């Protein structure tokens, strides 16, 4: 394994990411009043997921980590989602 050069994220990169996150937050709050009916949770979760992904890839540096780390984090979230979905096979069909 070679001695890798450590990637240093620039201050401006961090600042841009914050601005993106704040914009997404604004969107999230604004659409609260809209009527999505049963999809309101989904919309909220989608926006939250984009924010979470942004924090993970940029602030937490996942974008610059190796493939295995990326697979791990994807796997972990997938596993969690599957557990929730399977639990709902019970609740949804009772």
């Amino acid at each position, binding site marked *: 394994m070679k001695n890798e050069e450590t990637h*240093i*994220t620039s201050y401006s990169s961090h600042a841009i990411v914050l601005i993106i996150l704040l914009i997404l937050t604004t969107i999230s709050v604004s659409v609260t009043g809209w009527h999505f009916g049963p999809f309101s949770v989904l919309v909220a979760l989608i926006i939250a997921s984009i924010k979470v992904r942004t924090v993970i890839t940029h*602030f937490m540096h996942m974008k610059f980590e190796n493939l295995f780390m990326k697979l791990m984090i994807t796997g972990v979230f997938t596993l969690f989602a599957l557990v929730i979905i399977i639990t709902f096979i019970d609740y949804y069909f009772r």
Partner: protein
Amino acid sequence: MVTPEAYNEHYENETGKLGMWIFLFTELFLFGGLFLVYAVFRTKYSADFHIAARELNAFIGTMNTVFLLVSSMTVAMSITAIQKNQKKLAMFLVLVTLLLAALFMMNKYFEWAHKFEFKLYPGSQVLKNLPQGELLFFGLYFMMTGLHALHVLIGMILLSINFIKIKTGKVNQVHYLLLENSGLYWHLVDLIWIFLFPLLYLIT
């Protein structure tokens, strides 16, 4: 695997970081259990959840979200600073992160105090008289934000330790694994809040 020539500081840092990431996964699953309970009861009592959520102040919630998002940026910047050997800037950024965390906790304190004033807490008679879905919403609210606040406190302790160690030079341009891992932990605290905020405060 490791070759003898490659086993160095950088290798140990990557090892430490991997350990921290795995710890973060455990935290995700810890909160995950609560999210599962939330999902079940939100589905069952969607109207009650909607009504109960009106008791929460979306403005304070948004403020807290902004505090944590900015604090994530400042802690990430503090790592950039230490990597560039800008010691004073790193210390300043960690301090700002701590300040934002403190503001978050202050808001949380006022929120909870306000609820307690109206006898809205688990086990109270007021809560018992509410419709069941609303009771469960508040139970989830207190347990989820409570557990989250505990993690904010732990994060603040970690950040304080980092502040001192940067000051004394123990955390520096070469040895900054502690700061990096504390930063990861702090981002996790932020991540959980990013999910909590819309699910508790922004229910339409």
